[in-house]
């Protein structure tokens, strides 16, 4: 007879008896005083950009790149003709663009200054690293405080450092791909990031190397009125495979905080990149992130994106399917609670024959929360054998919730195949009563309904992240019952 444990695993792969200590919103809502050695001050001018570049001892071309980006940022209007007017409430003159306690991340936790270390210990990062990660980078405001990769992975030739170090130590790889997937002028916020970027990860995986465990970055905003602008570049060389996970938190401040990252992925022939985000921002954070990957021949890029928290998130991970038989996928979960707007989606640009893309977006709107799906699928006329599947499902809880779907699917030619499905469902009173009649409180019932709604997606996540997602949903739903 099989043991009961085995049976329970077969039946319920997602359920875990004792969830590992993940992050939750109460856990993220704290702040320790930190003395910053480097501070670019408040507001954004050429001097701010020069300061950041000088502190990082950058090559002249990078400084020029930054200064040029600042010009582009200033020239570009806010995208408020299609996006929410709430963007106009960002006051760029009141933000601090660079805050760091040191320039070089530590390789062991013992070396990390105590005031920063205790933050990450409280968030459980060192513990997770020991348990299941191949490498960790922990960014505190503008710079990585800690960065380490396990020996076994480093010996395979895998590079995993922060972007500053990547530019300094590996310019020959970095420069070749940097800013190529997402050019400075892509949008106003990619330009802003290009001017003041700091931190983020640089990853290179050599041909044929399959990194067995995930690499993880953790982004922590600690300071008030601060902007975090990490820049991540991941290159998976031919036939290689890598999974990258990022988590993010910030304490709750009365003023708003800006997080504006740029993430570029390059999957060369036959390579696979899986990029997983579980963000849990405090509800004063403007989260405006540009994420895109290029998939070459037979390569695969998969974005798994869970957006919980923040005041406004605008994020549409994309894949440019550049080589024949390339595959792109976006799996997205967004939960908009009271006072929050999740404006998320996906972009799939087919640029070669027989490329396939898959988008599954699920959003949950609670109370006054608002969620918006925006998608772009582009298949030009001259291509053949391309396929796209798009599914957008929205779940509404309480009558004031709002959800909008803007799918823009452009398919030309008659040799391609596209499928689009959308649904809106409500957690109705009868369902809640049914669950309450079995002994669950109203909050537990709603939480279970939401977890059920995202269950088919959560099953695709690594175990630790699906547990964390469940915990975050539980907390959001418990708090939403009056």
């Amino acid at each position, binding site marked *: 007879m099989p*043991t*009961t*444990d085995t*049976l*329970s695993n077969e*039946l*319920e792969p997602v*359920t875990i*008896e*004792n969830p590992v200590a993940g992050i939750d919103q109460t856990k993220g809502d704290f702040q320790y005083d930190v003395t910053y050695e480097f501070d670019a001050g408040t507001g954004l001018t050429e001097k701010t950009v020069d300061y950041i570049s000088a502190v990082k001892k950058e090559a002249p071309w990078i400084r020029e790149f930054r200064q040029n980006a600042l010009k582009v940022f200033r020239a570009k209007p806010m995208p408020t003709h299609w996006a929410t007017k709430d963007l106009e409430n960002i006051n760029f003159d009141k933000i601090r663009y660079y805050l760091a306690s040191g320039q070089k991340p530590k390789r062991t936790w013992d070396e990390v200054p105590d005031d920063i270390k205790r933050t990450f210990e409280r968030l459980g990062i060192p513990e997770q690293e020991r348990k299941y990660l191949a490498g960790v980078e922990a960014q505190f405001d503008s710079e990585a405080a800690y960065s380490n990769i396990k020996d076994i992975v480093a010996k395979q030739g895998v590079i995993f450092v922060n972007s500053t170090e990547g530019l300094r130590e590996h310019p020959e790889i970095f420069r070749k791909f940097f800013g190529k997937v997402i050019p400075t002028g892509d949008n106003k916020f990619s330009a802003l990031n290009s001017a003041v970027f700091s931190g983020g990860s640089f990853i290179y995986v050599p041909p044929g190397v399959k990194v067995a465990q995930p690499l993880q970055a953790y982004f922590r905003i600690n300071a008030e009125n601060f902007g975090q602008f990490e820049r991540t570049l991941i290159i998976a060389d031919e036939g290689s495979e890598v999974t990258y996970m990022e988590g993010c938190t910030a304490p709750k401040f009365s003023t708003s905080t800006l997080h504006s990252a740029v993430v570029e992925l390059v999957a060369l022939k036959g390579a696979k990149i899986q990029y997983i985000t579980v963000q849990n921002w405090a509800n004063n954070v403007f989260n405006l992130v540009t994420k895109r990957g290029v998939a070459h021949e037979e390569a695969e890029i998969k974005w798994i994106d869970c957006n919980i928290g923040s005041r406004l998130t605008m994020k549409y991970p994309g894949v440019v399917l550049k080589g024949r038989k390339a595959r792109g996928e976006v799996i997205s979960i967004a939960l908009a609670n009271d006072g929050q707007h999740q404006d998320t989606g996906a972009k799939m640009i087919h640029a070669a024959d027989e490329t396939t893309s898959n988008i599954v977006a699920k959003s949950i709107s609670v109370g006054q929360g608002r969620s918006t799906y925006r998608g772009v699928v582009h298949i030009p006329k001259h291509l053949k054998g391309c396929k796209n599947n798009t599914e957008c499902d929205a779940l509404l809880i309480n009558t004031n919730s709002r959800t909008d779907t803007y799918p823009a699917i452009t398919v030309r030619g008659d040799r391609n195949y596209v499928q689009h499905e959308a649904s809106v*469902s409500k957690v*109705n*009173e*009868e*369902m809640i*009563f*049914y*669950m*309450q*009649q*079995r*002994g*669950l*409180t*109203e909050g*537990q*019932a709603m939480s*279970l*309904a939401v*977890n*059920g*709604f*995202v*269950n*088919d997606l959560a099953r695709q996540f690594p175990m630790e992240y699906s547990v964390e997602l469940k915990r975050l949903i539980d907390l959001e739903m418990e708090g939403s019952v009056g």
Partner: protein
Amino acid sequence: MSSLVIQDLHVAIGEKEIVKGLSLTINSGEVHAIMGPNGTGKSTLAKVIAGHPDYTVTGGDVLLDGASILEKEADERARAGIFLAFQYPSEIPGVSIANFLRAAQQARMAEGEELDASAYYKRLYAKMDMLKIDRKFTSRSVNEGFSGGEKKRCEILQMAMLEPKFALMDETDSGLDIDALRIVSEGVNTLKGPNLGVLMITHYQRLLNYIVPDFVHVMYDGRIVKSGDKSLALELESKGYDWVKKELVTA
């Protein structure tokens, strides 16, 4: 030994009174059947006892072991031992039966206390064996795409796991063919015993061929108008509900 006492209960939806002074006492170990024509308030009675938010109690009381439950939320009543087997159970997409029951068990435990997963599955499988339910069943989403018979079996399985003091069975026979009816009835008969009181609400006598009641009550226009033993059900079957109406008029 527990008791569920309904005292002169009056219930309304909005302005409309549906239950008009109903009294009934059910003790552990007893099986009561309430029969009556459509629209007389049978299902309302079951939902009100379970705490459905759509109904307003305008008079009377419902006591579980001597204490009123009317001020309690539906989930508190459930945890106190009231189980409603729904006529139309809700679908919960993406939530497996095993996970749902596990959440229901967890909700019955003190804060900070964790359910022992292996003991839980052991118990679940034992109950499923007892009810002759296939093991694959509990990995399906609750009621999603279930046939009428599967939905009712799912209700019986939940009842077996949650071990209520009183089970209110709302039209358990509706939508079932003879085979499904027999299987579900066997389930209820298996769960019957000295620690469980059952209130069966049914329109037809045929269910009572399978689950034999100790008491039969006829409900009409929001009240119980006639009570007796199982022979009353047979009499109703042969004479029809008109017979009760006529008797009422003559009385």
